[in-house]
């Protein structure tokens, strides 16, 4: 005989959100202490898909670790490719041909579009709107087809190489990309903004929900759209320019409200900005080689190296400690969502459960990137 369920004296109860829950997008568990519909305490429990990429790195050559980078943030895999190659190129002193830099920017930005589109789709699904998912996936599929042509894969790209990229882009890719941008531009105002952004239900679910202050962002090391939604203009692409980003004219969308709607708007505006960057990069695309001559086995000089890129979720950094060997002595991967999620507990306190889920969705979590 099992004992009858008794309420605790203070009438709170523990609710497990996940690890298998559609709103956690992957295997995240949040231990919620609830008082009725209100969250008293929220404790994310991580590590369900921890794979110890950092240990794997110590056991492989620099090039062999490349595929691992895409398996962290599988939605913006090329940014992770980029962050890793930048670090190793910095350590080994490798110059990258200009055309390769442009191709990197074009593909990374296309990938950022897929990431934001998927976030949009999944976020609205969390909030109870099903059909936007179909529109977003329709558009996203087009980009995946384009990227598949040049990279050979649809999700976990391993396209960048030290000193360039694996494969040159062709005219079909260029015209395909231009057509796609034209198409997304025509669809954005009606299907995305008229139908969803201006929807009163969405606005009521997001406005003034999940307020995160500037100071909280700083104390927790939050970056990406979460930080920009709190009124801080910080984007590694502008603040610490890498690759050929300084060549392009683009804006960093910033909203001061700090609520879920602000973060939503930041990402929607970033879609526009990414399209602007891609167009300019296609216009300016120089001729030339796409890969520098680089030795097969790299042995960077002993020392510490750091490089960061702006991924769709925030700043992704690699700290590489070399001891002159053919594999890293230590590789620390700083993933943005790990820091972003760490403020969830503080902010979710006192929220309604449904609002806490909206807030979680607005953080744009990708669990494999947190768990690494």
């Amino acid at each position, binding site marked *: 005989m099992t004992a009858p369920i008794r309420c605790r004296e203070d009438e709170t109860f523990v609710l497990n959100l996940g690890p298998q829950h559609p709103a956690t997008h992957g295997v995240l568990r949040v231990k919620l202490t609830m008082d009725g519909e209100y969250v008293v305490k929220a404790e994310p429990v991580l590590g369900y898909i921890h794979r110890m990429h950092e240990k794997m790195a*110590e056991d492989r050559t620099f090039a062999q670790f490349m595929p691992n980078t895409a398996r962290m943030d599988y939605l913006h895999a090329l940014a992770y490719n980029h962050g890793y190659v930048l670090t190793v190129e910095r350590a080994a002193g490798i110059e990258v041909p200009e055309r390769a830099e442009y191709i990197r920017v074009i593909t990374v930005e296309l990938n950022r579009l897929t990431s934001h589109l998927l976030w949009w789709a999944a976020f609205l699904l969390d909030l109870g709107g099903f059909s936007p998912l179909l529109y977003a996936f329709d558009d996203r599929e087009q980009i995946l087809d384009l990227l598949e042509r040049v990279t050979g894969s649809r999700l976990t790209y391993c396209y960048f190489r030290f000193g360039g990229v694996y494969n040159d882009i062709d005219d079909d890719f260029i015209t395909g990309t231009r057509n796609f941008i034209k198409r997304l531009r025509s669809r954005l105002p009606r299907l995305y903004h008229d139908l969803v952004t201006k929807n009163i239900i969405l606005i009521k679910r997001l406005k003034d929900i999940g307020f995160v202050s500037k100071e909280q962002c*700083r104390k927790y090391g939050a970056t990406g759209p979460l930080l920009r939604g709190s009124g801080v203009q910080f984007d590694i692409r502008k603040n610490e320019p890498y690759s050929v980003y300084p060549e392009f004219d683009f804006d960093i969308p910033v909203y001061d409200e700090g609520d879920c709607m602000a973060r939503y708007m930041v990402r929607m505006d970033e879609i526009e900005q990414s399209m602007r960057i891609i167009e300019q990069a296609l216009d300016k695309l120089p001729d030339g080689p796409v890969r520098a001559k680089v030795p097969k086995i790299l042995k960077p000089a002993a020392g510490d190296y*750091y490089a960061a890129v702006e991924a769709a979720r925030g700043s992704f950094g690699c*700290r590489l400690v070399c001891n002159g060997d053919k594999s890293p002595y230590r590789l*620390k991967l700083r993933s943005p969502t790990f*820091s972003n999620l760490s403020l969830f507990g503080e902010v979710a306190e006192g929220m309604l459960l449904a609002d806490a889920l909206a807030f979680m969705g607005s953080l744009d979590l990708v669990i494999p990137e947190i768990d690494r």
Partner: protein
Amino acid sequence: MNIVEQTRIALLELFPDLAAADAEARAKAEAEAAEAAEAVAPVEAEQEVTAAAATGEAETATPPPAEESAEAATPETKAAAAEKEPAAEGPRQNGVAVGDYDRHGVHLDVLCDPQQVVAAAEILDQAGFFIEAITGVDWLKEDQMEVIYDYNRNDGRLCRVVVRTRIPRAEPELPSITNVYPGANWHEREAYDFFGIRFLGHPDLTRILLPEDADFYPLLKDFTL
């Protein structure tokens, strides 16, 4: 004064000896620069007079003194920075080194005692930095563990600071900075999880990514599969 120099001076508070020496060197450099600037003016005027007298040689004669004065000012400041650069041989001494940003990706590289990490965090917190990551490196041969704190700022002024400290491998303990940066909580738990580094004063130092019943620290160099 730019942000890197500002932060460097703020961080020198950790090392009173170095701070005094640095302040002296800076005062000296400034005085010399001022002196040189003063000296240049009359010299140039003088030379203009002589140049007017002896036409032709004027162009070649004027530049050197100006160059000399510029050189006189910079080596002092460079020497002050070089003092804290890691010596090529022997272990590095505590201090604030100006990093080669293009080569290593950081502007300031601080080496301090384990007990000083909280003070360093407080200085950087005051200066408006945010904590980016905390991690360890296992130096098995030296029987030491290095703890690395990455700081960055988000106000558009570029300055990356790395604070590092070394602790004995047998007893990997140092104070926690969670009271300064609540965001350090998870990063410290991660360093504990991977290296077994114990952060004293941490509110909840438990496994974060590995299972709670794990009895190993995977990133230690003597942990092999």
